[in-house]
């Protein structure tokens, strides 16, 4: 997260916390963050949050919606209040002492229950020193708990901004394997790479061999890298005559510079038509 965004984010979070908790809870939260023993108090409070705030989905007024948009975090608008409060608490942790910040947050990870883990991973983009959370984030991708994975994979800008290629590719693969909402992966197109494209094609071939369908969004990550070898695999996919899959492949091809593939697509009248009518875009899959 960029420095100049930090203030806007703090402002937006604080405003929403205030309007979504009782006066009592507000006082309690304030006493926590103003305490001298800040990191210990916040750690304890982090666990207690749902008891004080409940777990309803947050309510936003129009001003707050604008604040969120300005801060670039509109995606938090469907969070529950306990999740938001927990992220906000972590966001207020003193970040001057990098080691201490790391130790405090890591300790919370080690004894996290399910919803705490969701909040902790959701908080990664809100924490200072993004470089120190890379391993933790990669570890999170190994989780099999659905809601925890969703917190990392969906609507979370941290992974695309910080993970190395290997961990990023694992995240995307895991998203397909565990049927997450691919459209909600932040930075998906930006971090497309050849190695990921090749791995995804192998995955598609496995799916075909098992008689299973291939997620159309998979081809979105292949388009840029189409070459003679990849083209051969795409032909196999096109021969399956699954309309959704065909259209996704056609769209991927339209984003590549590989002319033989473009020519080949034009031999399918339906695909040619759909493409020229401008009916194809990744949001439609």
């Amino acid at each position: 997260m960029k420095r100049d965004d930090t203030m806007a984010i703090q402002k937006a979070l604080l405003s929403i916390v205030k309007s979504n908790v009782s006066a009592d809870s507000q006082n309690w939260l304030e006493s926590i963050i103003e305490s001298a023993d800040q990191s210990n108090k916040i750690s304890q409070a982090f666990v207690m949050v749902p008891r004080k705030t409940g777990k309803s989905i947050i309510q936003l007024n129009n001003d707050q919606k604008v604040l969120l948009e300005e801060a670039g975090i509109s995606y938090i608008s469907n969070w529950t209040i306990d999740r938001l409060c927990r992220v906000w608490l972590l966001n207020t942790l003193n970040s001057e002492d990098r080691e201490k910040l790391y130790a405090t947050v890591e300790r919370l990870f080690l004894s996290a229950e399910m919803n705490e883990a969701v909040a902790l991973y959701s908080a990664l983009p809100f924490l200072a020193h993004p470089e120190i959370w890379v391993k933790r984030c990669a570890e999170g991708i190994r989780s099999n708990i659905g809601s925890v994975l969703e917190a990392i994979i969906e609507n979370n800008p941290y992974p695309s901004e910080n993970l190395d290629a290997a961990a990023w590719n694992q995240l995307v693969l895991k998203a397909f394997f565990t049927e997450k909402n691919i459209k909600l992966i932040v930075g998906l197109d930006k971090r497309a790479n050849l190695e990921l494209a090749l791995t995804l094609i192998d995955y598609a071939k496995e799916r075909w061999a098992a008689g299973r369908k291939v997620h159309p969004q998979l081809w979105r990550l292949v388009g840029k890298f189409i070459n003679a070898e990849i083209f051969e695999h795409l032909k196999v996919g096109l021969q399956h005559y699954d309309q959704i899959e065909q259209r996704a492949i056609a769209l991927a091809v339209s984003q590549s510079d590989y002319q033989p593939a473009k020519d080949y697509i034009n031999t399918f009248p339906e695909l040619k038509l759909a493409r020229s009518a401008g009916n194809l875009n990744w949001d439609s899959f």
Partner: protein
Amino acid sequence: MGEPEAFDISAVKGMKFFDPHVHMTSRTTDDYQAMADAGVVALIEPAFWLGQPRTGLDSFRDYYSSLIGWERFRSSQFGIKHYCTIGLNSREANNESLAEQVMEILPLFIYKEGVVGIGEIGFDDQTAAEEKYYRLQLQLAKEAGLPVQVHTPHRDKKKGTQRSMDIALEHGLDPYSIIIDHNNEETVKEVLDRGFWAAFTIYPFTKMGNERMVEIVKQYGPERIMVNSAADWGISDPLAVPKTAALMKMRGLSDQDIELVTYRNAITAFAQSGQIDEADFNAQKNVDLTEKFEGNTILRGGQQPRTDKSSIIIS
């Protein structure tokens, strides 16, 4: 005895059940599916021993973590709300050097969301070490304002049960916050008379049978009585609660009494933790339905699709 009767699930169709003692980490997904199908909407998994003693603190830490993490998720896949109680069990209280370390990490876990009590704690061999850690954990429950789930011993049960109650009262705990578990015909009267909750474990061969259970409810009424399966890694039955409800119905108990002993009483007792919200049970079910209704084939939050167990084809 004639032919044993088959369990006819339709006898309890539409009823919902709460199993306040079941060790799901030892059970398969088939059990979860069967429980959900039989109407179990929520359960409590008490921390206990694993059939053999642990040798280090990290094993305890990871076990407690799994009760509030992975197991909670596994359960949610079947639309069953998972709660747990956290504690140092009586057998392992006898390893004093390890027990000391476990006591130090308990506060990290007992305040977690969905932790509805300290448990299962109490006596096994009734040694001095067991008593020491039972007392320390009662004190912890008192400070945290949490109910206590008390395991009573297999051997010398009656005295062990009396002693467990005496000690709890000695520590100033309200009997209404204490669930005395694994009762039988010999212990129930005193437990109820002294104001505690009496839980009964329907477990083949070694604990209560459900025919005896029907007689107990007929004799003592439904107040402060609850039924559980305590299903674990031994030969046990995760459907013990719905089966007992079905038997109660066949033997003429009222729907209201059945609901109390197989659902409501357990909620009333453990909701004193402030951690049980019945709306959550329904929410878990609704999530599943809405998503199917909207034609989304992706089961969100990890809800599991059904497999057809009767088919030879696995696809």
